[in-house]
């Protein structure tokens, strides 16, 4: 069967993509800029900008001079590929073989597909119309070879669908750039007056090879179908879902347990093979009475460990009400992440195994009592005691600054400082007596004050003067006075207990 290829060209891929989510960008001139050798250059622009004289590769300063109201957007490396991959996955509805082509196009092998649309004309029209409806400005061409499809999609002026084995005729009038040549070869061809493909396509091979190298011959052969060219198709992501229909409705906990282990086993084998791990999963139980019972689990780290996941799901069995029976179990992995590859078996050192065990323990606790029950504390660059630690819930995050131990800090800190009554006759000296919860403490030893200023950019109020004090029974406290010494009106607080 004669191969047929469709090349789709997105003339304004990224500007169009931006306009999909932000329709206000559709009509106004927009450029996507990139930093290159200290200059801001125009990487892509949209149709209105092109009409008003913006050219690719010009500096942003020039573009602004042309259109003062131009909208600038930063370019992110590799974003074309992401957009194209997404579009390519969508295009799999037209043909099973779809590939990303460079940075501005898609390539579809439609051999044996177009009859479903009753011919190539409705096929192409349907595809382009749908892409245009999404907001992309596209052109497409169908020919026998990848090279000629590429050329006609971008440079063709007559027809979009070239009949079988006629690409030669339609290529003749196109410029040399249509052959996907290196820019240097194109320039050399123009210099020699070969402005169209017909000027050189029939020259003897040896002549062309001597002057332009092997690349030109290869490209000509590919465009005409004399040389093979391969494409790397996008594979559609298969959803991580497992189904288990039951012949007899299941009503017992044991039955549910068995179903869970069967589902997990097949899911985990697949996850293991792909090096992925599960972060979130939903088990849907379709009951005979038409209801769907859902239970979900989550893990701290991606896991494909069947035993662990089964344990997590089994903790949830009590919540599954089978009623008249469950006829279908569906296990959907809604969160999937790549597992950090660890050396297997013999090389596994104990700490890695320990880490897995600890995360699995954390998963179980989190499942029972909620994720925010688990916290670690990391130091933060603040002197204000309440802000000096940051609670994090993941187990991997490392401290960005070292813990400091140069200032005395209490072992126990009260979440809310408690007001106390003190006798402090000498200004800026520690008190000689304080009363907390009706108990009198005579102070024998004291350190301080350590003044901690309030961070004015975060909140307002007075500073604190902290004293470390020890009473007659040897108990140690952290007290502070709010603001400056004023005699009787001073506000004193107890903020912590030292070990």
């Amino acid at each position, binding site marked *: 069967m004669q191969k047929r290829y469709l090349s789709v060209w997105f003339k304004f891929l990224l500007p169009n993509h931006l306009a999909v989510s932000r329709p206000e960008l559709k009509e106004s001139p927009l450029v996507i800029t990139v930093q290159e050798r200290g200059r801001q250059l125009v990487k892509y622009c949209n149709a209105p900008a092109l009409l008003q004289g913006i050219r690719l590769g010009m500096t942003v300063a020039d573009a602004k001079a042309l259109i003062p109201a131009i909208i600038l957007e930063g370019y992110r490396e590799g974003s074309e590929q992401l957009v194209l991959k997404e579009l390519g996955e969508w295009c799999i509805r037209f043909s099973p073989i779809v590939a990303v082509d460079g940075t501005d196009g898609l390539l579809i092998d439609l051999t044996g597909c177009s009859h479903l649309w009753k011919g190539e004309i409705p096929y192409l029209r349907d595809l382009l119309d749908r892409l245009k409806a999404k907001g992309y400005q596209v052109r497409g061409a169908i020919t026998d070879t990848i090279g000629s499809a590429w050329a006609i999609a971008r440079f063709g002026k007559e027809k979009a669908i070239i009949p079988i084995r006629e690409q030669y005729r339609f290529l003749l009038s196109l410029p040399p750039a249509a052959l996907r040549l290196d820019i240097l070869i194109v320039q050399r061809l123009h210099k020699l007056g070969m402005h169209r493909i017909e000027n050189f396509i029939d020259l003897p091979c040896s002549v062309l090879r001597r002057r332009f190298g092997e690349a030109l011959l290869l490209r000509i052969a590919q465009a005409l179908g004399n040389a093979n060219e391969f494409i790397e198709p996008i594979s559609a992501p298969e959803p991580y879902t497992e189904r288990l229909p039951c012949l007899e409705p299941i009503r017992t906990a044991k039955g549910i347990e068995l179903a869970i282990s069967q589902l997990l086993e097949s899911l985990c084998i697949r996850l293991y093979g792909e090096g992925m791990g599960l972060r979130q999963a939903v088990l849907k139980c379709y009951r005979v009475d038409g209801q769907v019972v859902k239970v979900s689990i989550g893990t701290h780290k991606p896991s494909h460990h069947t035993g662990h996941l089964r344990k997590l799901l089994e903790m949830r069995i009590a919540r599954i009400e089978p009623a008249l029976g469950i006829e279908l179990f569906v296990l959907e992995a809604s969160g999937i992440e790549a597992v950090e590859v660890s050396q297997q078996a013999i090389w596994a050192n104990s700490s890695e195994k320990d880490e897995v*065990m600890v995360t699995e323990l954390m998963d179980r606790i989190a499942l029972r009592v909620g994720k925010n*029950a688990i916290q670690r*504390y990391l130091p933060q660059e603040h002197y204000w005691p309440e802000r000096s630690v940051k609670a994090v819930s993941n187990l991997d995050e490392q401290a960005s600054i070292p813990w400091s*131990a140069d200032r005395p*800090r209490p072992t126990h*800190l009260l979440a809310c400082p408690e007001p106390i009554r003190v006798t402090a006759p000498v200004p800026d000296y520690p008190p000689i007596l304080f009363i907390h919860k009706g108990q009198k403490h005579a102070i024998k030893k004291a350190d301080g004050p350590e003044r901690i200023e309030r961070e004015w950019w975060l909140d307002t109020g007075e500073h604190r003067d902290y004293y470390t004090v020890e009473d007659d029974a040897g108990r140690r406290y952290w007290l502070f006075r709010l603001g400056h010494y004023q005699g009787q009106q001073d506000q004193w607080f107890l903020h912590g207990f*030292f*070990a």
Partner: protein
Amino acid sequence: MCVREKQKKIISQLRRDIFHLEGFRPESESKSLRLGLGVLEDAFPYGVFPTAALHEFLCEQDEDAAACSGFLSILLGLLMQNQKPCIWISSFPMVFPPALKIFGIRPDRIIFVRLHRDRDILWAMEEALKCNGLAAVVAELRELSFSQSRRLQLAVEHSRVTGFVLRRDVKKINTTACVARWRISPQPSLLEDGLPGVGFPQWQVDLLKVKNGQPDSWNMAWTPEGFVFDRQEKTGEFPWKNRESIQTGS
């Protein structure tokens, strides 16, 4: 006579097995397991701090609890030398992590779990004690019945993780399966002569109950160099004798 010898042998073997289950290691392998707690370790059989066991700490007031946390952090620091993390379960965490640094512990290696009901705390503690990827598990509890403590002790025997139960506001001191019962109370701080201010923290460490060991009490201070024991009070009363009696008696 021969029968009695045999019985004696069996009894000593049984006792050794029980010790092993309770987390005490015999002298021969204990040399490397000494945590560096000084005379404190001598109160335990074989003179080694039982690591795979459940310890109970009593604290009545907030000040005691703070002292207890301090002492416990030192123990945790020693236990966590093998780079394993530890878990601290409580209903209302009071511990201020930056303060733990001076007790020789990296505060970010402690995982704090905040649970509200005692039921959940016990469940989490049991689960955690079963996980031998941990160095130690600390739980703050109000009540601990004998059967609950037995469950925890069984979990510990399996995984060889050290468990600490901090009991606040204990109404009635009941029997538990814990290996040791401690009480830490703050004492006037240790100062070098003539210096003003507050010195190094000092506590009265009461070992109220210890299985097969000798309950005792020490005054000890924590300095950056390590423990300092107040030897004057207790000279001659360290349980050397008792320790020997265990060895010779068995």
